[in-house]
């Protein structure tokens, strides 16, 4: 059983071979699904908790505070303690809610997260699905999450929730466009929609550097639109703490609230991971050209560490936005999308097409 931290293909293959040698194909598949499912659940829970902790520490640093420091060393177990508290809380079903939809909404939101994460290659060989329309699939599924938020807002039978839910709908549907268009810009450069293909195409340099100015513009727009998609930072209108007290999740408590909470942070991860895959080379180390000493030095760090390093940097950036900027108003969010991001994006696609056609990229 060959194992290498640099390439997980052999490991996955050997597990598969080991299972299929002693079991029928049906059972092999079932057990593989179970292993993958457990791994993803563990990953979402642990990374979500880590992100909550990181967010608290980042905002504390920005605000010249210490942040969580009571439970465990440097408050590291704080989020776990909070999670246990949320699990043990009584689940309250307010009077007058639409029970079926009210209970369904958090599961829709969290399920979307799992579907999208299954598309991501964390390292060579660590990817469960690899369609040839991978990027398209990710954008399509990510807009399913908004249904959960809309349902939560509507079924809570609360005016604040309703306003929050509707705001969220308007916002995500608009920004879906910018996310899609900036991805299209990069697909023009990469020539494929398959996620593994996009990552492999960046072996000799990340697309952010390969695509020159249009790639950089697409990068900025993708980060803005992605922040808006996650309902975070200056775009957190659906929650709108100072106006709507809690927005769409005002009426949720206990584990159902935890689902929304976890989903928000995992959406943050999804956006950061998409940025990493499409612009920053996925798990590819920082390469310039092919076969020089610099590339060899960069190859020493395992790809999985490269991937999470890049993801965490992007997450830090998005958290930094959230704790700096004031919130936009609902009409300004739409203005920003339709009057600024969309025209710039369309222009950018043309620019990128010209760059690719003329062969100015490398």
């Amino acid at each position, binding site marked *: 059983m060959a194992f290498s931290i640099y390439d997980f293909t052999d490991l996955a293959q050997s597990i598969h071979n080991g299972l299929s040698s002693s079991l029928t194909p049906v059972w092999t598949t079932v057990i593989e699904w179970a292993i993958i499912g457990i791994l993803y659940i563990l990953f979402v829970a642990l990374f979500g908790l880590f992100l909550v902790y990181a967010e608290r*520490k*980042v905002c*504390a*640093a*920005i*605000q*010249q*505070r*210490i942040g969580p*420091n009571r439970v465990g060393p440097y408050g590291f177990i704080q989020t776990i303690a909070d999670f246990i508290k949320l699990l043990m809380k009584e689940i309250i079903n307010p009077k007058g809610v639409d029970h079926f939809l009210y209970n369904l909404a958090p599961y829709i939101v969290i399920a979307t997260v799992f579907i999208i994460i299954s598309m991501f290659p964390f390292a060579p060989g660590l990817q469960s699905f690899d369609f040839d329309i991978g990027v398209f699939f990710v954008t399509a599924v990510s807009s399913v999450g908004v249904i959960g938020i809309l349902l939560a807002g509507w079924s809570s039978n609360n005016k604040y929730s309703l306003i929050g839910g509707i705001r969220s709908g308007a916002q995500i549907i608009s920004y879906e466009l910018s996310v899609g268009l900036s991805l299209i810009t990069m697909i023009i450069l990469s020539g494929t929609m398959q996620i593994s293909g996009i990552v492999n195409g960046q072996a000799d340099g990340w697309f952010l550097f390969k695509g020159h100015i249009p790639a950089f513009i697409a990068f900025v727009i993708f980060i803005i639109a992605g922040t808006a998609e996650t309902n975070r930072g200056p775009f957190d209108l659906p929650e709108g703490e100072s106006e709507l007290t809690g927005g769409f999740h005002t009426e949720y408590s206990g584990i159902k609230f935890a689902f929304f909470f976890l989903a928000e942070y995992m959406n943050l991860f999804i956006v950061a991971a998409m940025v990493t895959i499409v612009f920053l080379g996925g798990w590819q180390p920082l390469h310039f050209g092919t076969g020089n000493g610099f590339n060899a030095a960069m190859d020493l760090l395992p790809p999985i560490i490269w991937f999470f390093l890049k993801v965490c940097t992007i997450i830090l950036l998005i958290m*930094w*936005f959230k*704790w*700096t*900027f004031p919130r936009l108003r609902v009409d300004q969010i739409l203005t920003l999308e339709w009057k*600024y991001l969309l025209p*710039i994006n369309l222009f950018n696609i043309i620019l990128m097409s010209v760059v690719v056609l003329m062969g100015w990229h490398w």
Partner: protein
Amino acid sequence: MKALFNYIKEVLGGFYTLLQGLGVTGKYLFTPWNYVTQSYPENREKLQMFERFRGEVIMPHNENNEHKCTGCGLCELACPNGSIEIISKSILTEDGKKKRIIDKHIYHLGMCTLCNLCVRACPSDAIIMGQKYEHAVYNRSNLTKVLNKPGSKIMEGIKE
């Protein structure tokens, strides 16, 4: 063309202000050791209140268990919300005269607004403001205190 130029200027100018904002917070983000928070229960020993800090009304006693309060009742009169009650008793002095002295100086911390008027009114500086700041108790009746210690006497040389 001018409109296009203005549009680009607007977008870039907006971006610049955002970057400036990020610069302000970034300065603190990347120096996380410069925090201003005080870890409260840990620094309890070091925590020094200012000398004029008004925590509660106390009556200082010297080593012979003597205080300066004559029981004149001026603090009771000065208090705006009735948090001081003075109960006096009369005793016979050595030369056979009757004299009223203080029996109990009752102070309701729960009603006190720490306005310092009683300390100001006291002619013999018998009561002062203490520096204690942790007043939480489990029972409200514990907030009612008797300021003169049991068995205490008035100091020599304090005139009525």
